[in-house]
């Protein structure tokens, strides 16, 4: 039931993976990056439309919601880490002295939590 061979085709704005013996392919406008969020098993796709948005998909390809960029931030790229999958938000103004921050992704709850500064 796992996600295999996740591939991002930037030129075609297509996201594909294999699941349960099937090839799944989706078109995502302004697709920048994608990764599997381990805790939920969902696929997180970063679209750079506007300030950026995370689109969530179940392993079978069903849409599972989306997460908007936090107010005052533009989403840049995904960062896999020991604490889980995160996205870098680049800020309009510093918070606690740092303009850019990691936001941890909870794909199950479709939420972001500020995690730590991003350089």
């Amino acid at each position, binding site marked *: 039931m796992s996600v295999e061979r996740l591939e991002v085709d930037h030129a075609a704005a297509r996201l594909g993976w294999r699941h349960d013996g099937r090839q799944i392919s989706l078109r995502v406008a302004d697709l920048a990056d994608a990764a599997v969020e381990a805790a939920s098993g969902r696929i997180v796709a970063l679209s750079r439309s506007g300030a950026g948005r995370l689109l969530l998909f179940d392993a079978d390809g069903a849409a599972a919601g989306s997460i908007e960029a936090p107010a005052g931030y533009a989403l840049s790229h995904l*960062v896999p880490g020991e604490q889980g999958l995160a996205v870098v938000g680049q800020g309009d103004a510093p918070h606690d002295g*740092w*303009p*850019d921050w990691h936001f941890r992704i909870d794909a199950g709850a479709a939420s972001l939590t500020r995690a730590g*500064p*991003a350089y």
Partner: protein
Amino acid sequence: MALLQEWLLALLLAVAALPAGEARAQPVPANVVVAVPAEAGSARAAWWADHRWRYATDQQAEAAYQALAATDSPSPWPEWHESNIVALPAGLRFQMALAPGQPRDRPGAFGTFDRIDSVEFVRLSLAVKKAWKPEIDRVVTYEITAPLLADVGVVGPQIDAPADRYLPGGASQFQMLVPAAERMSHLRVVEERPIR
């Protein structure tokens, strides 16, 4: 020269003649830098060697160390940094380390006027903790195309606590003071190259 050699020899003989217990028995004035035992942690010992002298007492130095090591978002500047806000002129070039997946048209907020030759330079001289940029694969040279408001100085020291690593910093650094969405409107990409 001969006088200096004689003086050094005399000093060495005097130190060698001291019984170890007697040497340890001497009280240490509060304003004297003392070595930190190795078991205190390599990051702390290395920070102590570089920065203990800045503080009047061990207690003040320890407080400064803890303030740096115990927070997730310490200042990117040295403790003594005072804001030096300038408009960086068009034509000025700088470098920035990027992460895998980070588009070059989404630069971070910090650049350096030093040449970034390795990931180790980023970790040590730019004092970038693993948590702040877990992976680094490229360096981009940017050129400023329109005056860019920035705070300019040098990189402050950091403690990468999970790695028990002292990151001395010391390279040049500036922090862009424009909203993230406007950064690239002040820049153009000159060159991009991989680093390890």
